[in-house]
């Protein structure tokens, strides 16, 4: 199939059809403005168009919260309704009536308050709670309105019948303004998604652990998504009542919320245009088959089900794939800026291969014995030709104190995973942490980064206690980490995976970044450049523009490492960074660890690859069944009997046994 298309494309002599990317939206926008000329411009017709356009703004709003930030505020129609009621009441009771701008502002403010009332409590639990609580609100608000005299009860408020209200904009002029507002909302969502705020949304959507590990405040970020979304939906309420001059409980039923969700899912959540196209399709079906309306629910239900199961990314994701094949959206070509070629690291491959065999408990134990062999150890420490840049700490750099774990204890059910643990990570040194599977290494790391809470003990940097902090605070204090199985934003490129980490420490407000104010432009660019530099330093220049989902496992690990470095932390906690790496990559990781230490960063290295640990660590701690079995220099470890007896069942020091 794809071959045929490529063939046809070649025959037609079209190398690039990138212009289609701009031509299609341009034509659509022009058509949108010309709709009254094509479809009739009677005031009833215009009112219908404007109704649809207000819904499109809600779809854009919902897409920001749901598609990008992963916050399922399904009952956004409740927010739309309160915004609309706020605006229409203000217009009704204001002695001289109010204009479109005032109604939009009132709608937006009231909507924002409504969104916060739902979001503040519901987000404390997260997950599908927000979806259900908001859906319940979407059911409750029209039900209450039906009975409430102030808002006109069942019949609603007819604004056209209010003598004081005389809209100064109407007819086609109003239509143009509403279309422009929809386009503005879409443009805003694009600007938002490609700003530091949008980057955080996507990180949080991917994984809360990932997000907090790079210092993103999850609750606040989720709330921000809800707030932006609710403000837009409320604003849509203002536009709706201005153009319809009417609002009643029936204007925002729960079914409407479900229709919106159907539109989003079919068009493609998390794409800029998907929700618009999906909503138009759904509303089109709804309008077109009016005689068939009682069966529409089945049609939408089946469509929704089919998309949820088979095409979870929606139509626009298919369009993106298709246009890539057609050459409209040219496949991203690797950009290789001037820098060190990847081949520069090939020199260390042999040494890496020798030490790359370790893995699992038994393998690790065997490797302990093999470690003193000179070839593996010396090959490992050989520096590749080019030198890595220095990465001196930025976050938490003021405090040169070590990170201290004291008497840490943590149990899960009846199992004590970590007990009476003391550990010190000194700045500028590599601290190796070894031990068999289940010995408590990762638990200890999760305790330090506060994904688990301590049952007893303390964790601090200098006088700053970390054990009572939330995970993002630990990251912001300068403690970066990687994960045992890499956590990356799979739909984003390698570069986009690193950028949010840089953005955490480059000062700039979200608004400046979204609106592209001078400092916003500067910091957006700076984040990109710094992320690029780090990826290039790790020899990843060939993958910067590739989606993380397309990267092999080893490369993902390196990208994650780059993300941790991008925080420019004072401490880095690496959870088995070498597992599953190729010899070249392994060499890279070892070199990066040493380079970080050389830059003044404290490194905690959890590894089964014991030869690697012994060759680069300044101190080694060996865990066994949640307790510290040994702590000392690599040389002392080699001479120690306890480690050998636990791992190999022999009572001689490792030196002798090998």
């Amino acid at each position, binding site marked *: 199939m794809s071959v045929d298309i490529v063939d046809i494309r070649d025959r037609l002599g079209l190398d690039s059809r990138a212009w289609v990317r701009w031509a299609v939206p341009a034509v659509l926008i022009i058509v949108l403005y010309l709709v009254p000329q094509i479809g009739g411009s009677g005031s009833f017709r215009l009112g219908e168009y404007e109704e649809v356009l207000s819904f499109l703004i809600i779809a854009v709003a919902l897409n920001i919260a749901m598609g990008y930030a992963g916050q399922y505020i399904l009952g956004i129609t409740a927010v739309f309704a309160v915004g609309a009621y706020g605006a229409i009441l203000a217009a009704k009771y204001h002695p001289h009536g109010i204009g479109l701008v005032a109604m939009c502002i009132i709608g937006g403010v009231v909507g924002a308050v409504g969104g916060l009332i739902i979001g503040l409590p519901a987000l404390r639990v997260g997950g599908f709670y927000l979806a259900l609580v908001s859906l319940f609100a979407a059911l409750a608000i029209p039900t209450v309105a039906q009975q409430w005299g102030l808002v006109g009860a069942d019949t609603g408020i007819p604004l056209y019948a209010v003598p004081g209200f005389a809209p100064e904009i109407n007819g086609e002029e109003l239509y143009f303004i509403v279309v422009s507002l929809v386009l503005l909302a879409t443009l805003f969502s694009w600007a938002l998604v490609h700003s530091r705020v949008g980057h955080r949304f996507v990180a949080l959507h991917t994984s809360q652990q990932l997000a907090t590990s790079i210092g993103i405040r999850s609750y606040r970020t989720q709330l921000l998504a809800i707030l932006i979304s609710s403000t837009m939906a409320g604003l849509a309420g203002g536009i709706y009542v201005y153009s319809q001059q009417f609002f009643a409980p029936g204007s925002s039923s729960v079914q409407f919320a*479900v229709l919106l969700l159907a539109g989003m899912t079919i068009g493609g959540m998390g794409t800029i245009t998907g929700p618009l196209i999906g909503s138009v399709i759904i509303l089109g079906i709804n309008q077109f088959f009016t005689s068939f309306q009682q069966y529409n629910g089945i049609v939408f239900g089946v469509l929704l089900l089919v998309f949820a199961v088979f095409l979870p990314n929606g139509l626009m994701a298919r369009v993106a794939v298709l246009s890539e094949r057609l050459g409209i959206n040219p496949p991203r070509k690797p950009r290789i800026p001037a820098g060190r070629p990847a081949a520069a690291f090939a020199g260390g491959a042999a040494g890496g291969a020798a030490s790359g065999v370790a893995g699992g408990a038994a393998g690790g134990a065997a490797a302990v014995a093999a470690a003193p062999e000179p070839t593996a150890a010396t090959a490992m420490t050989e520096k590749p030709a080019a030198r890595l840049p220095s990465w001196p700490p930025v976050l938490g750099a003021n405090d040169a104190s070590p990170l201290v774990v004291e008497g840490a204890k943590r149990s899960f059910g009846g199992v004590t995973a970590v007990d009476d643990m003391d550990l010190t990570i000194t700045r500028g040194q590599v601290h190796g942490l070894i031990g068999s599977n289940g010995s408590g290494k990762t638990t200890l790391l999760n305790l330090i980064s506060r994904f688990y809470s301590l049952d007893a003990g303390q964790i601090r940097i200098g006088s700053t206690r970390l054990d009572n902090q939330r995970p993002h605070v630990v990251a912001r204090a300068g403690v970066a980490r990687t994960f045992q199985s890499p956590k990356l934003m799979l739909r984003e490129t390698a570069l986009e995976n690193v950028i949010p980490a840089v953005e955490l420490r480059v000062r700039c407000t979200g608004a400046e970044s979204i609106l592209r104010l001078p400092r916003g432009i500067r910091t957006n660019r700076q984040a990109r450049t710094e992320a690029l530099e780090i990826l290039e330093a790790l020899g990843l220049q060939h993958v910067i523009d590739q989606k993380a989902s397309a990267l092999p496992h080893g490369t993902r690990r390196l990208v994650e490492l780059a993300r941790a470095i991008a925080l420019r932390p004072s401490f880095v906690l690496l959870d088995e960074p070498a597992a599953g790496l190729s010899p070249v990559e392994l060499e890279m990781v070892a070199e990066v660890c040493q380079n970080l230490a050389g830059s003044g960063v404290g490194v905690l290295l959890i590894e089964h690859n014991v030869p690697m640990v012994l060759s680069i660590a300044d101190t080694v701690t060996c865990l066994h069944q949640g307790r510290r079995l040994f702590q000392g220099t690599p040389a002392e470890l080699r001479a120690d009997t306890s480690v050998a007896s636990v791992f190999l069942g022999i009572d001689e020091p490792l030196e002798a046994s090998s």
Partner: protein
Amino acid sequence: MTLFLTALIAGLAVGSVYGLIALSYTVVFNSTSIFNIAQGDLMMFGVLAAYFCLDRWHLGQLVTLLVIIAVVVSLSLIEERVAVRPFVKRPVVGLGWFIATLAFSLILETVASIIYGQNPVVPIPGAFGNGTVTIAGVNVATKFILAFATMIVVMVALEVFYKRTWLGTAMRGVAEDREVAALRGIDALRISRLAFVIAGVVTALAAFVVAPIVSANVGVGLTYGLKGFIALAIGGFGSLRGCVIGGLLLGVAEQMFDLYVNANYEILAALILVLIVLAVRPAGLFGTRAVREV
């Protein structure tokens, strides 16, 4: 005082139905990590079946109960197959399953509205007629007692099942760690199907006891479905007792709101209550399990 007691009893009865729905949610979630939003609409279909059996065909109560169970369990199994299994097979990422169960609920609602038509169904006689029993000077409708008793029996039965039987333990284990469960020879798909059967029976019982209480219509599905969730959020996720107490609290709160504030705005009672509980105790009154990933 009598007014208060009457409201209290009605609240406990309706709350029992919320509790039963909440228990159904919990049974499914324990084994699949999926919150089945269509549960309320499954109950609505049970009510629809009750209407046909009792009002149209004049069948006996026991036969009616069996028909309701058959209808609800069959629909549950269909849902499990088309909307849930695709998400049980692969690891649960995102909320795609949520959309799928919502879609199924939309289909159920549309089908029901075609069958029901626009008009609400007439009230259906309860299992013990429309009689009353006098307890401590207050007349209590037998249908209320039946609702309450059913919920207590179901909760105790589920508690015993989960704590005392091998299968019950397995059904809890699957959601917690699918891989470990697989290693012990537990088939996640069979467990998921079984969970839908058990939840279907519980929901069918809810339909049977609620049918005489509400004059059923299509709206009952979504309303009871969401209120069942609110009962669960108040009581605490993952706790069977929490479901029951949350349901009763919600039912009583609604009736008190009707009595002392304004019956027109009854639905606000539930919304305000759940927002306050989540703000003060996000895990719910009896919840231990955090829903949040971390």
